[in-house]
């Protein structure tokens, strides 16, 4: 799509096509992401959910080329990232940023907050010190921190929620277009979690961001996403507009994830007998549909044929033989 005509504005900002990421593990091949295709429109938030080990973080890192994909391509604003090398990829990274789960571990404990947030500017060649200081002040204020109070201090002086604000400031200081948030609130308390989710929504409006929001908690994903993609054992199960996915999950796995959420309401009995067990090892995924070993609706065909992703009404897509 990187033709001479340049990108068209109605094209998705990010497009992932047939992406596969494999690792060699003790002589075997672990397929962390297998043949995943996704698109994220400009200004959209796509939620990406699934259990531990489903490949959602690997997918996020593969978009940034932090893990090189084994196959498939990643196109960002008309440029195929999977073909970029060295300097060209480094320049492109200004436009794509990543926020991690553990905010404290992702800040250098020996550097001041001012230096941490200014570092991306230095790396990307903003040589004017006054300009750097201005941008650091602006972004720190934007994330709700007082620049004069925090610039000279070290990360250990801040709580988890404040460290996540600092991480968000660092990710936004280069004014990127796409931010990949990898479980940004999972390590935070409920009260602080709400603050950070609200902040991400504010920042999205203020900076015109496109977000890929990775999380295991469907309620958190619902709060911020326009569409939601559900992953299981390296494969996509379902991609749907948020409201529809929650109102009427198409894939049995999505339904299972929804039922498992504990509701803060004692009049609702917790669901029992949820699809038993845990995901099988990604080193030896089951044949056919990967979810069939836990699926309450599994049929013979599910044990043999891997269902392809198929479009449904209302912009939804599902990979399930129930819709054959």
């Amino acid at each position, binding site marked *: 799509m990187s033709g001479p005509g340049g990108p068209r504005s109605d094209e998705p900002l990010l497009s992932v096509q047939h992406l596969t990421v494999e690792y060699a593990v003790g002589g075997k091949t672990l397929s962390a992401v297998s043949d995943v295709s996704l698109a994220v429109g400009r200004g959209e938030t796509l939620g990406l959910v699934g259990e531990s080990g489903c490949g959602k973080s690997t997918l996020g890192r593969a978009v940034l080329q932090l893990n090189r994909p084994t196959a498939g391509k990643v196109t960002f604003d008309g440029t195929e990232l999977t073909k970029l090398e060295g300097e060209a990829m480094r320049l492109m990274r200004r436009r794509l940023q990543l926020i991690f789960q553990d905010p404290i571990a992702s800040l250098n404990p020996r550097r001041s907050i001012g230096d941490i947030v200014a570092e991306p500017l230095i790396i990307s060649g903003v040589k004017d010190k006054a300009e750097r200081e201005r941008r650091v002040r602006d972004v720190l204020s934007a994330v709700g921190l007082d620049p004069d109070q925090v610039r000279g201090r070290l990360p250990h002086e801040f709580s988890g929620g404040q460290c996540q604000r600092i991480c968000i400031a660092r990710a936004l200081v280069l004014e990127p277009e796409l931010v990949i948030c990898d479980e940004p609130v999972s390590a935070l308390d409920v009260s602080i979690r709400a603050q950070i989710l609200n902040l991400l929504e504010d920042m999205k409006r203020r900076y015109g961001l496109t977000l890929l929001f990775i999380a295991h908690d469907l309620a958190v994903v619902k709060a911020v996403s326009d569409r939601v993609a559900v992953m299981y054992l390296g494969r996509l199960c379902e991609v749907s507009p*948020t409201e529809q996915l929650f109102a009427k999950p198409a894939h049995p796995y999505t339904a299972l994830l929804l039922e498992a959420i504990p509701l803060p309401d004692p009049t609702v009995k917790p669901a029992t007998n949820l699809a038993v067990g845990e995901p099988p090892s990604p080193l030896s995924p089951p044949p056919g549909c990967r979810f069939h070993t836990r699926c309450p609706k599994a049929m013979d065909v599910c044990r043999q044929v891997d269902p392809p992703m198929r479009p449904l009404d209302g912009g939804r897509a599902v990979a399930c033989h129930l819709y054959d």
Partner: protein
Amino acid sequence: MSGVVSGAVSAPLLSVEGVAVELPTPRGRLRAVDKVDLALAPGRTLGIVGESGCGKTMLSRAILQLLPKRARLEGRVMFGGRDLATLDPESLRRLRGPELAVVFQDPMTSLNPVLTIGTQIIETLQAHLGMDATTAFKRGTELLAAVGIPAPGQRMRQYPHQLSGGMRQRVAIAIALSCEPKLLVADEPTTALDVTVQAQILDLLAREQQRRHMAMILITHDLGVVAGRTDEVAVMYAGRIVERAPTPALFARMRMPYTEALLAAIPKLDSAPHTALPAIPGRPPDPTRPLPGCSFAPRCRYADELCGRAKPALEDPDDAGAPYACWHPISGARTSWSASSP
């Protein structure tokens, strides 16, 4: 003491009376738990809810007599008629297992990484119940099967690192249940687990608890976890219990603004995407710098001058069995947070 007995008919199995825990820190003494009273009857479940640093884990350690060496404990922990704080180490050791057991957030803190699962279960059964090796192996296998571990005979020969996080937590639960304790303390038992595994582990705990008529303290930061699975809930903030009530009553009519704020901050499955969440502003107070008034006042939207000046006591003015510590309790029924079922 105003300790409300959970389950009105039975005498309490556990009664915590005026318990306070202080820890020395470089910045001064930290009062992690401040004068807590609680009671729990046999077979009942108490949920303790609060954010990181509210003292819920220190309270559970005080109950289990597992406090750090430098910690100072005040008050009494009465369990089956004895004050645990006065027991010698050998009597405590004999109590742990058949009477008191614990499940931690991270099962690797209680499992030994260099011993097989089987060795660890058998050791427990031999030490506390005096079983011979063959009986203990058989019983261990049965226990693993009871907590939903497939191929239990094979798992007995495996090491903890060969199991997933959910399976390890099941093993930790099997070991905790192995000597049929009267009280199980589960400290954030599912926080590190995926939501589907969490549901299974909570089911498992509820089932075993009912089957064994065991009392349980379930400690969590998630009001969703306690809602469907406890008889009574105590909400902690800055080392104190700020509200306590039977679970249905708490959710139907919460009095403490902190409880309300904590519930409101949870993203709801039935609100539309991009709905701003009612976040609690600020963060909990520094526990080495106690406030003169209500600890929640700086973050509370109902707070006034009185709240900043005087600390409200945990009282039950309506004799509703639901005490709270607030000068300006909220009233009125709450809206239901239930989601449209999928």
